[in-house]
């Protein structure tokens, strides 16, 4: 495998990782602040993608579609939080898993009911299609590069918000001691709704961005949800920094594993056997990574002490 191809695969891995971060950031904030496992996060991703595909179909504007994904996912997030999630904060993890599993069933089938079983398509706009010439003579998809850029900007904004703004201070305080900040006069239930809406909007935005390179269909959220869980567990649940490192690790491991393992095995095995062993191992690689991290650091890379 040539060095250029390797760099291109690394960029793909980076793009995948950055998108995973958008999903994982919301999940880890919601867990860190409210102590809630939200399996329905993948449904918010799907809602964002459907809203974007629908608006793009109506207006033809990609930017309006992205805006619609943010608004639709945030509104859905607020509704879900007010109606259901709010009752789950004091419950144990089992109840949270089951109630949000029920939400997945309702939201997925509801979406299928409204939009039908056929996938929708979201086209990349003209000004983002084609390729760009990077240094070293690499031709790389303009849209994927834009995804990396957008993801990194959002990540930077999120870090700045958490560390610099008053809202960020409240979020961090909420992670440390809920009773205390309630006693200090912060409207804790409004804060919870806001954090949930923020996480939902990030997930919806990621759904819309990915929707333009894959098809928009019911059930698109769950594979990403599971990967986002792998990310936050590797990073340490509740840590935004951990989510970022975990997302890049998972994105690169998965993409490079699929690209390199079959070739690597071919150096000492028959080609047919090498490609099947390599492909099997590559598809398991991130779960092996996660199990390995948890076995040596049971609370993730950036998790607190046990």
């Amino acid at each position: 495998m040539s060095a250029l191809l390797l760099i291109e695969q690394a960029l793909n891995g980076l793009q995948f990782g950055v998108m995973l971060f958008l999903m994982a950031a919301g999940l880890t904030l919601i867990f860190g602040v409210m102590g809630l496992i939200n399996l329905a996060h993948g449904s918010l991703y799907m809602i964002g993608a459907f809203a974007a595909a629908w608006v793009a179909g109506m207006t033809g504007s990609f930017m309006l579609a992205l805006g619609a994904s943010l608004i639709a996912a945030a509104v859905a997030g607020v509704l879900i939080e007010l109606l259901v999630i709010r009752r789950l904060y004091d419950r144990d993890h089992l109840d949270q898993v089951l109630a949000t599993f029920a939400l997945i069933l309702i939201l997925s089938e509801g979406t299928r009911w409204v939009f039908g079983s056929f996938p929708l398509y979201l086209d990349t706009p003209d000004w983002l299609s084609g390729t760009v010439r990077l240094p070293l003579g690499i031709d790389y998809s303009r849209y994927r590069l834009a995804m990396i850029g957008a993801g990194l900007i959002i990540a930077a904004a999120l870090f700045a918000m958490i560390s610099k703004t008053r809202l960020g201070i409240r979020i961090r305080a909420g992670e440390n001691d809920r009773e205390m900040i309630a006693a200090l006069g912060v409207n804790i239930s409004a804060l919870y709704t806001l954090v949930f809406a923020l996480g939902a909007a990030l997930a919806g935005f990621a759904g819309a961005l990915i929707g333009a390179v894959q098809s928009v269909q019911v059930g698109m959220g769950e594979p990403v949800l599971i990967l986002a869980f792998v990310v936050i567990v590797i990073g340490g649940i509740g840590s935004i920094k951990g989510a970022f490192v975990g997302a890049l690790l998972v994105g690169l491991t998965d993409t490079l594993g699929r690209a390199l393992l079959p070739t690597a095995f071919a150096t000492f095995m028959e080609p047919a056997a090498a490609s099947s062993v390599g492909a099997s191992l590559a598809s398991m690689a991130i779960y092996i990574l996660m199990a390995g991290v948890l076995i040596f650091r049971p609370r993730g890379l950036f998790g607190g002490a046990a």
Partner: protein
Amino acid sequence: MTREHLLNTALMAVLLLFPLWAWATDEPFLITLTTRAVILAIAGVGLNIALGFGGLVSFGHALFFGLGGYAMGILAYHAQTYTPVADWPMTIEGTKSMPVIWLVATLVSGLVALGVGALSLRTTGVYFIMITLAFSQMFYYFAISWPAYGGEDGLSIYVRNGFFGLNTMDPIQFFAVCYVLLAGVLFFTARLARSPFGLMLGAARQNETRVEAVGTRPYRLYLIAFTISGAITGLSGALFADLNRFVSPVMFSWQTSGEIMVFVILGGVGRVFGPVAGAALFILLEHVLGGLSEYWHIYLGALLLGTVLFARGGLYGMIAGRAAAHD
């Protein structure tokens, strides 16, 4: 007899009499439907040992369900193609004999549960939920990408496996086999729950520190419970594969883990017969609601949400009142 005992008896009687009635009126589909409920009930009873008695929220029991299924699939596949399963270090032939398949499925799932449990139980809480999910996803992707046994398409077995002189292709005879196994598993689980081990496990669930203080390691109790739980779910997987004469990676999927969990919750966590009620209710809903609307998962989701939010303790909690032993 308490109300719970009455409910147990009524439940098992209905599960026996309904297919007999269907047999008398020549409705083989309803017999197969009940058989499905009985097999899934075994998976639920298995998970309940970890989830209900031990408080271990495993989101990866599809792993054991799938292993049981593939144990059946691989053994029967080699028997029907007359090829050995392995040549080295010794020749292992495939088999079409149900008891052998059950034994292999239970042993393999139990062994894997022992290994997965030994690693996973180092973590607690959300991390435990997620690492069990990760292990089942590992096997799911492995099953999809490993081409030897059908990969993503799965593996079809032409004739159901045999059980001493019975014609297992006859729905009522296969039902009888599954029903007797369910009864056996329930008897074992009820004995387990009242054994010194079961009581100690319940104590560890409620207060680990006190259990440690009287000189027992909770880790060992949890690991044994997780192993037994995985082995029983594996047995159910082998039966489920035999029912459909088909195995596919879907058995390993996380939705399967979720569904097995739903049986336990709908019926009642921590009750020996709870998952049986849950699985029967699930199949009933699937049949009735699925006939009413293509989108029956919406109603299932709403029902599950209602159970979690408002009717903790599931069906058993509603009818038989709060359990004495479960908090």
